[in-house]
């Protein structure tokens, strides 16, 4: 099943629960009307939380960069030495 249909089905299910809550008045109506707003705000807060936590725990690897720089420098040094010995390149 296409993904968008799964999301639609989920939204329809949530809408169904909301309408049934409105109809049966288990929870006072004034609260029930605002339920979608609460859900959207909670989703937004959850998203921001995930971004914040992810940012704090963002894995970094500075040691990899220094290793790579060393390898690059060695190769450049070797190739410079090599080129200096070839008349075509150094002449």
């Amino acid at each position, binding site marked *: 099943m296409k993904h*968008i249909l799964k999301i639609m089905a989920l939204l329809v299910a949530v809408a169904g629960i909301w309408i049934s809550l409105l109809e049966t008045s288990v929870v006072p109506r004034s609260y029930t009307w605002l339920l979608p707003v609460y859900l959207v705000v909670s989703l937004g807060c959850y998203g921001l939380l995930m971004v914040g936590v*992810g940012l704090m725990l*963002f894995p*970094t*690897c500075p040691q*990899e960069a220094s290793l790579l720089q060393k*390898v*690059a420098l060695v190769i450049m040094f070797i190739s410079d030495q090599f080129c200096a010995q070839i008349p075509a390149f150094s002449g």
Partner: protein
Amino acid sequence: MSIKMRRKKKKYSIIIPTYNERLNIALVVYLVFKHLQDFEFEVIIVDDGSPDGTQDVIKQLQNVYGEDRVLLRARPKKLGLGTAYYHGLKHASGDFIIIMDADLSHHPKYLPSFIRKQMETGASIVTGTRYVRNGGVHGWNLIRKLTSRGANVLAQTLLWPGVSDLTGSFRLYERKAFEDIISSVVSKGYVFQMEMIVRASRKGYQIEEVPITFVDRVYGSSKLGGSEILEYLKGLVYLLITT
């Protein structure tokens, strides 16, 4: 006859698209050969007519390593990443396709871990992820990390992709899986990578992850501007609707 002799050795085709990577490509190829000594492989370099002499460097590498191990399959001009992989695939003779970048952001030392993971799990796809514990990035400032994390959370919420790193381009695919998925992908740039992995997930392929480190550009610079962000958002909506 022992089991080892009966089981044919698997061959890995490593496709590396290049454009103006004269400084990096020799180092990448050297490191690939250094880390994959125990495996059978070929390196297919798809160069899009680089004006900086990248193809001359590759021809020198062919002299060193052999034209059967380093293949240059050039194209006349920049024709896009997705088509570069497809072009490389046509010349590949391996059972597995590995894609990676030429700018040293992907270190070839992780190649054995991709292969081992695939052997252990029998997965169709092994993708490198920068966002888990033993992975990581270097060279990103706070804004870049924020953008990346925000984009990732948005994509996870909307698409439920089943992988932690959607835009990564360091991946191993079973050849059949690669051929199957790439034929249904239409996006360009890094949205191509997103579409590949999301379509693979929708088609039910087994996808495993390995941690990788990503060092942003030893030589040169990469950019993330407004147009890339817009492209990303359009890609997300497209994937949301069509997969």
